[in-house]
């Protein structure tokens, strides 16, 4: 039993270990922030390594918790993303009074996501979900002095609580009509009665909220803009990925028998997310807000893939999220870097970046191209597989809308590229990170990889790696 728990839950155990370590350390008075960071990052690296060593699957706690290769992979992705966020946040956190708490909250949410992923039961799922959301609200508020941060946190916690209410309401109907909250039993017990339809719609709305699909997305942009950049990165990548992983498996397995109900809902959400996300993103000036809307549009594309309802779909979603993780974190890393060193966050501030600091500009451009789905970045493959998977069902209208939306999204990604490369700054903000990258870029990247404060370069290195698409063949996993 214990060996099972240790083995199957090793990622979670590792996270719990970090949390306890930090808690006791905090009680003991805490230490230098660099050491804390080293411990956290080391722990995350360890969790990542542990996650990769063995391949196993199984269940625990009376069919509440399950794990398999796919879930392990997904957790590894999350842990990796958390590690990257931790790296990109390091400079910001180091200057913060409550560094330890930030890591505590972050690892807690990560733990919540892992539980959510592994849940085989609605209760477990709910617990994981809340564990992954409530601390996030606190993280959003982490810039304690900034008005916007507080406003964002408030909006987030209220919306999130409301969404949980709706979700729970739906779950209660499902429970009422079937008498079970276990995924496997639910899958067989669902008959498609009106009450269940109501319940499914409510549950989908709950999911839609977390993944910020239109029309449940309204909180997203405000929260992303108000939150500190690393938290925004965390929100846009980790919470979104985690919920999407669960969403796909729940949708296909638990609600599999009610496909005709949710199929149309997902189509509507997909089209709405792409359209609204794109239209809003076109106008934005603030980079974080811009990336928020772009991430809404990305969800729309993911939902197109989900609409395919086949093995390719789930594989494509996982693959896309992997790519998205790198691309979006890469973009955020640079946004954070620039915000940290100059305090500037709007697109106009990025004018002439290519002159001041070509390497940064190029890397942000690559990240954005990846988000836009341009070869040879991995984003192209992600989008291609998603849309290809989505076409499997033969809903060509959806595919055509998605394809056209690709153009709109390209437009606004290129807006940033244009600002960086083609426009010149009226008044140059002297030497925007100009020191970097002059000599021995690659060597520097390698050297700083283990130095958290220069996280940007580390991230960029990874980004470059990921642009070499050949290394990633996740898509094979399901087939």
């Amino acid at each position: 039993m214990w060996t099972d728990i240790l083995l199957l839950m090793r990622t979670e155990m590792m996270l719990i270990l970090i949390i306890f370590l930090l808690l006791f350390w905090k009680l003991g008075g805490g230490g230098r922030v660099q050491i804390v960071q080293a411990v956290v990052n080391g722990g995350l690296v360890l969790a990542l390594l542990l996650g990769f060593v063995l391949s196993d699957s199984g269940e625990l706690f009376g069919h509440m918790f399950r794990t398999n290769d796919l879930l392990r992979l997904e957790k590894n992705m999350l842990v990796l993303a958390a590690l990257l966020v931790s790296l990109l946040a390091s400079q910001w956190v180091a200057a913060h009074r409550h560094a330890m708490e930030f890591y505590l909250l972050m690892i807690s949410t990560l733990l919540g996501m892992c539980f959510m992923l592994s849940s085989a039961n609605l209760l477990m799922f709910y617990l994981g979900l809340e564990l992954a959301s409530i601390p996030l609200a606190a993280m959003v508020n982490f810039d304690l002095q900034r008005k916007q941060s507080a406003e964002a946190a408030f909006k987030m916690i209220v919306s999130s609580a409301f969404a949980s209410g709706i979700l729970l309401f739906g779950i209660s109907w499902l429970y009422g009509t079937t008498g079970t909250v276990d995924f496997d039993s639910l899958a067989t017990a669902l008959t498609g009665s009106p009450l269940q339809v109501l319940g499914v719609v409510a549950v989908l709305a709950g999911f839609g909220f977390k993944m910020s699909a239109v029309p449940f997305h309204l909180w997203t942009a405000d929260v992303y803009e108000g939150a500190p950049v690393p938290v925004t990165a965390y929100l846009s990548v980790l919470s979104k990925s985690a919920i999407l992983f669960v969403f796909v498996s729940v949708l296909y397995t638990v609600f599999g028998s009610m496909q005709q109900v949710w199929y149309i809902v997902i189509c509507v959400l997909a089209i709405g997310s792409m359209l609204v996300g794109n239209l809003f993103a076109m106008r934005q000036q603030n980079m974080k807000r811009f990336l928020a809307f772009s991430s809404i549009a990305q969800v729309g594309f993911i939902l197109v893939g989900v609409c395919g309802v086949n093995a390719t779909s789930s594989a494509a979603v996982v693959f896309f999220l992997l790519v998205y993780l790198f691309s979006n974190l890469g973009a955020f890393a640079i946004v954070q870097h620039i915000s940290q060193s100059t305090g500037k966050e709007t697109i106009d501030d990025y004018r002439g970046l290519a002159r001041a600091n070509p390497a940064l500009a190029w890397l942000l451009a690559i990240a954005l191209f990846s988000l836009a789905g341009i070869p040879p970045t991995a984003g192209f493959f992600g989008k291609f597989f998603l849309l290809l998977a989505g076409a499997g069902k033969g809903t060509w209208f959806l595919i055509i809308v998605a394809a056209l939306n690709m153009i709109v999204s390209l437009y606004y990604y290129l807006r940033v590229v244009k600002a960086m490369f083609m426009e010149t700054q009226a008044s140059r903000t002297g030497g925007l990170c100009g020191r970097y990258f002059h000599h021995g870029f690659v060597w520097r990247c390698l050297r700083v990889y283990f130095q958290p404060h220069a996280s940007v370069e580390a991230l960029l290195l990874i980004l470059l790696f990921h642009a070499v698409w050949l290394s990633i063949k996740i898509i094979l996993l399901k087939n």
Partner: protein
Amino acid sequence: MNYAQFAAFILLLPLLSFVVLGIWGRRYLSKLAPWFGTASMAAVCALSLYAAFRYFFVDGSVGGVFQPIIAMQVPWLEFGYKNLSIDLGLLLDPISVMMLVVISVVSLMVHLFSMGYMKGEDRVPTYYAFLSLFSFSMLGLVLSVNLFQIYIFWELVGASSFLLIGFFFTKPSAVAASKKAFIVTRFADLFFLIGILIMGIQAGSFDFGVLLQQLTNPASEASVAMASAGFLGLSALTWALVLIFIGGAGKSAMLPLHIWLPDAMEGPTPVSALIHAATMVVAGVYLVARLFPVFQLDALAMQVVTWVGASSALFAAVIACTQTDIKRVLAYSTMSQIGYMMFSLGVGGQGETAALGYTASMFHLFTHAFFKSLLFLGAGAVIHFVHSNDMRDMGGLRRLMPLTHISFLIGCLAIAGVPPFAGFFSKEEILLAAWQSNKLVYYLALFTAALTAFYMFRLYFMIFWQADKQYHHHSEGTLSMKLPLLLLALLSISAGFVPFSQFVSADGRATATHMHWQFSIAPVVLVILGIGLAAWLYRQQNDKPAKLAASLGSFYKGAYRKFYFDELYLFVTHRILFKMIGKPAAWADKQLVDGAVNASGDATLAAAQAIKGWQSGKVQQYLLVFLLAVLLLAAVLLFFWLV
């Protein structure tokens, strides 16, 4: 390798000369270029004469019939449909060999003449390169074995003509003229091309041999296909021939595609002598002659050829009577003479006189080349001397330029058709051919002949007689300028005595020369009357011409303004092509097509702007939207979708 294959060198030498002079001429051969060009042309000339000798006197004729010899034929581009291909080859038959002689001799003369004429000009090597290119193209044109090959060289002569007309490229009028020449002939070539397409696709081949053989056999597949297909009530054959003829008419400056020719006189005068008098402009005649057996099959096409030719002859002659630019007069006379050749071919269509018209036309082509290039070179010498093209600036030159005067006079007598000069013989044959088949054409031609004599001698008297003007120059020109004049004058006298019909006839058989002295009386009398009138009016400076012009009133004015063809073309190109088509097209592209693209972008941006209120910043509104969305989805699913 027999002599026919040596004919390949007739093409290769000028090409080589073009390449060498074109690439290295400016840098390394700036002094030698004229010699180089002339030497290669002399070699070509020798080869041509040798080929002519061999063909006509040794082995061209088999059993009294001249056979076409295909010295070389290689597929150049195969279309993969029926037997369609563009072949490059060398075809020697009476007319092509005759043309070889004409072209190479005239070209050599022009090369020689240019050595003096172009002395001191910029870019002499380039000039010789272009001359070589032209010679190459023209020689290739006449040697073509394939309808498409002729089209290829057809275009090449057009291009080299463009380059040569525009040789003085800093002169706006030269630029305009070169463009005009190219575009007008190109316009005609469009019809030529379509004609080729019809001909080729219907008959299944572009090869002259195959075409002639197939189409003249009414039972062959090609003939049936040609006759059966049709459009707007005319058979494919008629369409093809008429269209091809339009192509020829463009190159030969037939009505109404003649407008480029007078303007083309902006080029250096030797060039005009070569291209716009002797060789390129007769390409249209050559083309019809080349397809003569096929043209004979179609009465309608022959009618078109006849009437276009006859009307051009008359029309140009009338205009020529009023012009004062020495080269323009010659240009219109060229057009008029080509009209002769053309209608001569046209009247050769019917009856037993077929052979006569054909032979006459070719004969006239032959003689005309010599005396017309003589006239042009003479005019060139005059222009070189006077530094003006305008006849009114000249006068009394007969003393200052005795040799030019004599040779010019010979040229005028030849073109007027005064016996025993060359033009007389050929024109007599043409008139005879016209008389035998179409009386109306005959009378037109007769009248034109008189006009020709009149305007040529008007030109002659105005230049060489009348009162002296003051000139700066006092040298008639170098030897290289005089020699060609002399040689061409000799040829203008002697060419008429060539027993032409022995060599060139529609069916390849030698025929007896038709000479009816009594028939010649009318034309000769008319010609002498014309000359007399010209002498009366123009030998001395007086006001008779002005009075005459005034008495003719608007007709004179119309003729002087070339019957407003230029204005008509300007109207068509500027008003219709540019203003009515080009401008709207450009406008539509900017406003409608591009506008639609921009509008879609703007609409997207406007939509983005319009919906920004959705994100109001108020969390309670967000939640309301959330709730309504859930309820709406549930309601839709429950009441509309599932039920």
